[in-house]
Each structure stands twice: as structure tokens, then as C-alpha cells.
């Protein structure tokens, strides 16, 4: 009786009260510090330009204006940029997911001829600074006749070996017991069927990870999208549009903050809405 009592107490509040309060206090302070720059940006976007410096430290603006948003919205084509970002992100993520899942599967489960060489090639390119490859990538996209198109952005965005994803999938698949596959074989499944109906569903935690990591990456990428959409600004993504807007309006600080907020808030909302999914997905990256 007494033993169960102790157990219950230990189990429910895992920490004594004072400990809880300390932890909450630490987390509260840190969260506020962490989120301060974001809040500052959003609040600055409502300040009149003239107050920007005067009230640089204060969070509560003396006067609130929506003028920055109106100006930014009319100057830059954010609605179009936003749509482009969504389209490009969705499709390149999908493409990356399909190809890395397939490749990861065979790299993780089969010792086929040339596997070692492939892995070595993929791995060796992991860290070359990519700034110097801009020109050839540009030439390739041009060669495909896809400059200034969203398809060009999608394909080039999906380009590369995505070594991290390959490693995730392959190490995950290498832990799947052989019995599953053999059972599928007995059921008469071929190679493709086994992969699609047995393996793909199994890999959903890794897939979620890949979706999320690649989404973040594609959403924020700007160097390559910038050069690929030079001849057609209507194909620009949000990150590129924002970058160009910043270049043209260096001292319109409140406007830049407004642009930043426009770019930032939707993705933060998406993040909060899909929080659980998001975090479980990211978590898949290291569970494998």
C-alpha cells in the first residue's frame, strides 16, 4: 500500500513543485528571448517609418499604421510570389521524396553491383560550397529550355543527391527485418509491389522528415531561384521576391519588416497548425 502510494506520487508530478516552477521560469524567459526578434519585426512593420529609430527598443508602438503593408503589397507582387513558392515547394518536395525513398530503399537493403561506388560519389559531394556551381546549373536549366519557368525551379530545386535523406532512408530500411519482405514474396509480390505496398508505408516517419526538411529548405532558398527567374519575375518565389524588394528599398526598414512579416506569418501559422505532425516528422530524422 505504502509502496504504491510513493509510486503514484513519483509518477504523477515527476518533479516537486519548486523544480517545476524553476523549469517553467527558465523556459518562459528563453522562449521570450527566442521569439523577441520575430515579435520585434512584426511590431516594427506597423510603425510609421519616422518612428522606427525613435522607438527602436520599444515593443508597443506609439502609433500604429497599416501603410507599410499597403506600400509593400502594391510594390511587390507578393500574392504571385506566394503562390509560386507554394507550387515550387510542393512539387520539388514530392519529387525529392519519391526519388530518395526509392534510392534509399535499394541502397539500404541490397548489395548490388556499384553500390559502394554510388555511395562514395554521393557522399563526396556533401560539402563542396555550391556558390561556384551556379553557372553550370544555370546552363543546364537553360539547355532544358526551362529558364524562368516554375518547372525549372522545381527540377533544379529537387536536384542534387540529398545525401542526408538517402542516408536516412537507407539506414532506416536496413533495420527492417527480412521476414516482412519474404512474406510479401510468398504472397506473390514482385520487387515494385513489395516496395510500394510493404516498404513505403513502413517508412512514413522518415518520409515526413524528408517532407519537412526539404520544404523548409525549398521555401527559403533564394540564390538559385533568383538567377533562374531573372528573365521572368512573375515566376519568382517569395524568398526571391523579398530579396529583390530588399535590394530596391534598402532604407524602407518598416516596409522590409512588413514584407518579412508577410513571408513569415503564413509559414508560422502552418507550423503551429501542423505542429505535432511537424515535430514528429523532424524527429524521424534521427530515430532511424
Amino acid at each position, binding site marked *: 500500500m505504502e509502496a504504491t502510494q510513493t509510486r503514484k506520487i513519483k509518477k504523477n508530478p515527476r518533479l516537486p513543485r519548486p523544480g517545476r516552477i524553476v523549469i517553467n521560469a527558465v523556459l518562459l524567459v528563453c522562449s521570450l528571448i527566442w521569439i523577441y526578434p520575430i515579435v520585434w519585426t512584426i511590431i516594427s512593420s506597423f510603425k510609421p517609418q519616422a518612428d522606427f*529609430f525613435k522607438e527602436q527598443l520599444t515593443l508597443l508602438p506609439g502609433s500604429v499604421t497599416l501603410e507599410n503593408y499597403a506600400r509593400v503589397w502594391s510594390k511587390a507582387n507578393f500574392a504571385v510570389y506566394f503562390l509560386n513558392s507554394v*507550387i515550387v515547394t510542393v*512539387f520539388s518536395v*514530392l*519529387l525529392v521524396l*519519391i526519388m530518395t525513398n526509392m534510392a534509399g530503399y535499394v541502397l539500404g537493403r541490397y548489395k548490388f553491383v556499384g553500390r559502394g561506388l554510388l555511395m562514395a560519389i554521393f557522399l563526396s559531394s556533401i560539402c563542396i560550397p555550391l556558390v561556384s556551381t*551556379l*553557372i553550370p546549373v*544555370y*546552363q543546364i536549366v*537553360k539547355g532544358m529550355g*526551362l*529558364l*524562368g*519557368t*516554375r*518547372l525549372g525551379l*522545381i527540377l533544379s530545386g529537387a536536384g542534387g543527391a540529398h545525401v542526408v535523406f538517402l542516408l536516412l532512408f537507407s539506414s532506416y530500411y536496413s533495420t527492417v527485418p527480412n521476414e516482412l519482405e519474404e512474406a510479401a514474396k510468398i504472397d506473390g509480390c514482385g520487387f515494385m509491389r513489395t516496395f*510500394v*505496398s*510493404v516498404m*513505403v*508505408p513502413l517508412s512514413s516517419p522518415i518520409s515526413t522528415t524528408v517532407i519537412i526538411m526539404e520544404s523548409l529548405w525549398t521555401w527559403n532558398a533564394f540564390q538559385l531561384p*533568383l*538567377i533562374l527567374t*531573372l*528573365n*521572368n*519575375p*512573375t*515566376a519568382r518565389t517569395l524568398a526571391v521576391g523579398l530579396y*529583390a524588394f530588399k*535590394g*530596391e528599398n*534598402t*532604407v524602407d526598414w518598416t516596409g522590409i519588416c512588413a514584407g518579412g512579416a508577410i513571408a513569415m506569418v503564413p509559414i508560422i501559422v502552418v507550423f503551429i497548425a501542423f505542429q505535432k505532425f511537424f515535430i514528429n516528422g523532424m524527429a524521424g530524422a534521427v530515430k532511424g
Partner: protein
Amino acid sequence: MKKRLLSLLLACALLMSVSGALTALADEPITLRVYDWSDSTLVYRQKFHEEFMEKNPDIKIEYTQLTIDQFNSTVVGAIQNGEGPDLFPVPTTLNLTTAVNEGWFLPMEQYLSEGFVDTFQDGVLAEGVQRKNGVLYTLPESGSLSNSMIFYNKDILAECGLEVPTTFDEFRAACKTITETGAGRYWGLIEGGNQANRCEILLRALVQSAGGKIAINGRALTVDGRAPYDTPEMAKAVELLQGIVEDGSLYPDTASISAPEARELFAQGKAAFLCQGLWCIGTWANDHPELNYGVMTPPKGADNGYVANVEGGPWMGIYAKTKYPEAAARYLEALYSTTDYHYQADVVKSGSYVSVIKGVNEANMVDPVMKEYYEAASKCIDVPIATSRDAKFYDFYSTVVGATPSLASIAQGILSQAIDEPMDYLKALSDAETANWKTACETIGVDFAGLEFPNWVAGQPYTSEDYAALQ
């Protein structure tokens, strides 16, 4: 599980079809793409574009502004691949000769209406600058005026009871007094310190003010067979800058702001002095009409101190592979037109630029500070230019390898207190540049001595007679 497969395949199919549809973007009638980095005239440019599109409904202008780095890292690749914009300027890292040899630009005269080139002031469409072998490829953006004048805030000077400083010592003392009086409200000097080129321009201007022989930005000249970066005059200029920094008279965020930001902060009364060019006047007239300011030549460090004229440079040309050369020519004619459009008048009236079109400046220069600037700039003198002596030196600039840390970086390092002994760096730089320049001269087959102008006297204008005397 079959559903998974199906949805996967469906997704693939969707991807292909949708993105296929996306590629077939509607082709607009005529879209003229214009790229440049003229940030200070943006407002008037946009106004001009609206006006132009109204009068030319068959042409849609797509104007994009980048920084010069972005232009080099992105647009240049496009130009070489036949996908460049219809109109773009010669990058500042390049000269016309190289751009023309690369086949970037179209000879434009055949598309321009008769008499158009005659509207330009005499001498601005010069050989080597806008023309190559007599063929016109580019037009200049504006009249070339020194871009290293010092703007001062009259209200701050009055508040501190100061006169306009004229010497190095007075300037440093003034900066100090101002900073002390300002006590955190304003400082002595502000610069766009994260742009190394602005720091270099300031340093070179101060060397000239100290009577030192030094070429203008991005150009090479030797003194006694050596790159003149460790001269006593340089030491004097460096000492002044270091002194200002040590006194704490430099706006504290100088190292992390860009030139446009420095310009804006100056206008907000954060500093008493700013070293920039004419373009500020237009921006301020627009954004800060209340700003009470004046302009002066940099303070003198010696009696033979001077301010050098800048070299006129090429600007916009028509892309060799454009589909619409006529439309592009129409754009250029409109941009420089004084009868149908107001761009030239606007930029002069606002004080952004000095026009290269005859009569525009006389008719429109109303801003008193602009007149002041114009007057101050007219005291600038010519310094020798290697390419004026021998056109072969254009190849020199496309061959030479710049040494690092460059003069720009060192100047930036002084302003951000990143280096304690700048003269050591400057000596190493002189050695390295001298060697690099010799190598470049050998490579292109010109005499290294061509960079030396023995009959040049610091503080005295270098004239065509002086060039002739060297032959």
C-alpha cells in the same frame, strides 16, 4: 497499401501535368526587361516607366534593380547564355572594350532617330568610354562629378557653435566636439562602412586632400615605380581616420550599415558629416525636405591638397541578342528626352544627377545645395589616367589581379577598428600591387612605366599638354 501506390502515382501524374501547364506561361506582347543598380533615382525611374508605358501601350517595362554583386553573380551568366535583359549597364568591374569584345551590346546608332546623339553634351559619348572604334554602344547615366564630397548638417554645426572645418585637424576636432555635444544623439562622421568601396573612396579622397598622388578608385598609377599606398600622405589620411575612430566620433554602427542606410541616418540627424556623392541630394529632397545641410570639399591635409575628377563611365546599352532593338532604342530615347518625358529634368531638379543632355542642367538646377555641389565639384582637377595615355591599358584592367587585403578592405578595417597597424598592411599591399601590375603589364605587352606620370605635380590639373609632353 494499394491506396498508397495509387496516390503516389497520381501525385507523379499530377506533377507532370501541372508543371507542364505551368511552363506554358502566356507570352506577353512586348516585355522590355531593364536591369540596373541605380538605387538613388528609383522614384523618378518608376514615374518615367509609368509615363512611358502610357505613351507606348505596346511595350511593357519590367524594371529590376539589383546590387552590383548580385548583377555580377546572376545576370552576367544570363547575358553570356543569350538570356540577358534587353537593356543593362556595363558592370562596374568591366570596361566597355571588354564588354564589346564579348559581344554583349548592339551598335545602337542605327536604331536611334536622327539627331538624338546630338542632344548629348559635347564629349560625353567619347571613344573608349561609350564608343569603340567610333561605334556607339552605350550611353552615360549622368555627368561625372566627384563622388567624395562631404555633406554637413548645418543645424548640428550651429548647435555646437562650429564653423565648417577646412583642415584635417579642424575636421577631427569638430567631429569630437560634435560627438561630445551630441552625447548619444548624434556623432561626427557616418559612413556606409559595410560597403568596402565607400571606405576606399573616402580614404583615397583624404590622401588626395593631403596632397598625395593616387589614382581614382579602381585605377592604377605608380609613383616612383611603385603602387603609392604607403606614402606619407597615405599615412596622414590614415592617421586622421584612426583619430576619428579613436575619439569615438564615428557613428557607432558605421561598420555594419550600407551607404543608403548611412545616407538615411545622416538625414535623420544622426551625424554631422557624410562623404558621398550628388545622388544624396535628390533622395533627401524627396524623403527629408526639412534637412538643413550643405556640401564642402574634403578637409585639406596639406596646401597642395586637391580633389580629383572621376572618369566618365559607360552605362546602359542594348543587349546584342535582344528581340526588340527598336523598342529598346525607343526606351533610351525617351529616357534622355527633354521634350516628351521628364526623367532628365526630374533627376536634375531633384538633385539626383547632373544630366548629360544639353541645356537640362541650366534649366533645371534649382536646388541650392546642388548648385553648391556643382560649384565645389568644379574645383576638382583631372589626374592622369593610364588609358588616356594608351588605350592598351583597358586590357590591363581586364588582366590585372587585385591583391588582398585590398585598399578597400584595409580602409574598412580602419573604420571598424579591426586592424591596429594599417601602415603595415598598406606597405604589404603596395609591394603586392606593384608586383601584380608588373605581371599584368608583361602579360598584355605594355610598358610598366606607362603607369608612371613623372610630369604630374600633385594638386595641379593634369592636362592634354602633359600627356603630349610624355610622348
